[in-house]
């Protein structure tokens, strides 16, 4: 098999040599059952990624109809036979998260009852991944979602840059957590002139590990930002007291447990020198951009002359495009795991990196039963 490298080549499989693309396909498909690729999204913006993936694979997208009825119930109609085949359902998660989840569940169940052999969900951005911890009397929605997907008939999931790698443990079936970092690193090397004068920045200590793995691969320095201007929602851990605090302490018998001290965070500081450098902030999800904008302001103050943000999943909700446009950030680079065309129109600073190649390669390897290890080489433990 020809050696394929990530870094130096534009694409893993070159389009000018179609025979290479089909090498091994006809051989494999004769001996194995076929596979079909479906998209369970109902809006055209979301099916873009599915179209790109099927183009790279050289197959047609499976015929199905997914729509919302007038009373907002989801309806899925699979228009071709799937008996005994490996089925890949590509689902991107747009603004309407719950509908997208329902579409995926309904399609998976429809395929299961139509005797598909394996049903593999390709969900590049996995929803509710931020709700994977117990918060006061909340629900661990990620666990609930994984149970629902298993019940609906999925047998395997391909995803990208899970918010917490431990989420893989919630599932009762295999999860392939691909990485977008090779693509983002390639973008840095090719599109940022002068990148050797850059420094990788972690917006908060929790992102430090990821930032460090980028810094090592690019052979650049690392800076970590600490402290917050306001209380961050995602850090709220289980705040329950056990036993419950009583309003009137009337000589309770029992242990005098020391109260948890409320965490006091200092104002934002930067550990590391960014003076006279390009600052590249690295994170997995960019959603509410207020934290990023505040970080960019501080970095500008400390002497960074250009500020880039590299994130895998560009959710960019609410006012994000406007805030980015008005801020000190020079460019926001995201992948096409989450559709963001509308945000791009509002803010020209947003750039997209196409990751359909690695998803297509993963689909091909899983169907052919080949090893996925090649897709994970050069990935650090902490990425």
């Amino acid at each position, binding site marked *: 098999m020809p050696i394929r490298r990530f870094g130096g080549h534009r694409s893993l499989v070159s389009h000018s040599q179609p025979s290479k693309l089909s090498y091994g396909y006809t051989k494999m498909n004769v001996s194995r059952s076929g596979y079909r690729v479906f998209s369970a999204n109902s809006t055209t913006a979301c099916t873009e990624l599915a179209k790109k993936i099927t183009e790279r694979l050289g197959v047609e997208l499976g015929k199905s109809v997914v729509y919302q009825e007038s009373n907002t119930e989801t309806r899925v109609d699979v228009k071709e036979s799937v008996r005994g085949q490996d089925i890949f359902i590509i689902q991107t998660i747009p*603004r309407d998260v*719950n509908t997208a989840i329902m579409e995926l569940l309904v399609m998976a169940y429809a395929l299961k009852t139509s005797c598909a052999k394996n049903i593999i969900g390709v969900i590049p951005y996995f929803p509710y991944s931020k709700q994977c911890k117990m*918060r006061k*009397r909340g629900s661990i929605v990620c666990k609930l979602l994984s149970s629902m997907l298993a019940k609906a008939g999925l047998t395997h999931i391909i995803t990208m840059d899970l918010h917490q790698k431990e989420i893989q443990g919630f599932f009762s079936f295999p999860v392939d957590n691909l990485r977008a970092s090779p693509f983002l690193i390639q973008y840095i090397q090719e599109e940022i002139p002068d990148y050797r004068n850059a420094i990788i920045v972690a917006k908060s200590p929790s992102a430090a590990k990821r930032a460090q793995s980028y810094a090592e691969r690019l052979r650049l320095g690392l800076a970590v930002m600490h402290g917050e201007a306001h209380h961050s929602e995602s850090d709220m851990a289980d705040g329950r007291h056990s036993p419950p605090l009583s309003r009137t302490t009337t000589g309770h018998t029992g242990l005098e447990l020391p109260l948890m001290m409320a965490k006091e965070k200092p104002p934002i500081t930067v550990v590391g020198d960014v003076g006279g450098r390009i600052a590249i902030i690295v994170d997995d999800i960019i959603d509410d951009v207020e934290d990023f904008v505040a970080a960019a302001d501080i970095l500008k103050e400390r002497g960074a002359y250009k500020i880039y943000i590299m994130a895998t999943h560009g959710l960019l909700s609410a006012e994000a495009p406007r805030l980015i446009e008005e801020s000190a950030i020079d460019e926001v680079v995201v992948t096409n795991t989450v559709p963001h065309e509308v945000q791009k129109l509002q803010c020209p600073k947003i750039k997209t990196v196409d990751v359909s190649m690695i998803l297509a390669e993963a689909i091909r390897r899983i169907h052919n039963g080949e090893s996925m290890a090649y897709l994970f080489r050069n990935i650090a433990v902490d990425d």
Partner: protein
Amino acid sequence: MPNIKIFSGSSHPDLSQKIADRLGLELGKVVTKKFSNQETCVEIGESVRGEDVYIVQSGCGEINDNLMELLIMINACKIASASRVTAVIPCFPYARQDKKDKGFFDIPVDNLYAEPAVLKWIKENIPEWKNCIIVSPDAGGAKRVTSIADRLNVDFALIHKERKKANEVDLDDMADTCGTICHATPGHIQLISAGATKVYAILTHGIFSGPAISRINNACFEAVVVTNTIPQEEKMKHCPKIQVIDISMILAEAIRRTHNGESVSYLFSHVPL
């Protein structure tokens, strides 16, 4: 009542409040919101450890969002060590009329009927109900229609789509019963031409999606009567023909009986006061 908590989802807070009032309880504190990326977040505001929890959420409005909210709330209660969690779903989403049966679930299901409330409404609100005919808009609803007709001791009729002549009966008043309709059927116009003086449409779940409201306004119904399994406030503003039967007492009584371990079958033929 000890050890019982009732929580409301965001689909129909009005009905949940009515149910809680009938039971003499306060609704449990729960915060439901959406993050900026539209993910649902639920936080239960009080202890449910060891409690018998009832969550009221109807399958209406944005069905997928409400369904997800219900699932997350159930999950949160289970993780918080509730002793039993029961979902009260007045309008069950994604169900055909005859598929709400126990065979599709692994857990106990109590499928209540609006019939007793409908009968009561007919007797109280339609003068000369003794001379009316109960009509089913299609063959599938025949069983339901005959059951009501028997209890009222009146005749019934069927609208069969192929026949040009609507039906052969001479009538004064009429009441039309169906399970769920999403849009008004043109068959009702035929009933007028067949000699009915008044046409009432009685439905359990008034979904009224799409152009239903304008069609009802243009059609010749005397009244369209629905239960409050689905919130009707907004629709009543647009369509004065819509009237609402309150079924909160049926649900409240079912909750009370389930909590106390009593039989629920009394509710299949009686309306609690």
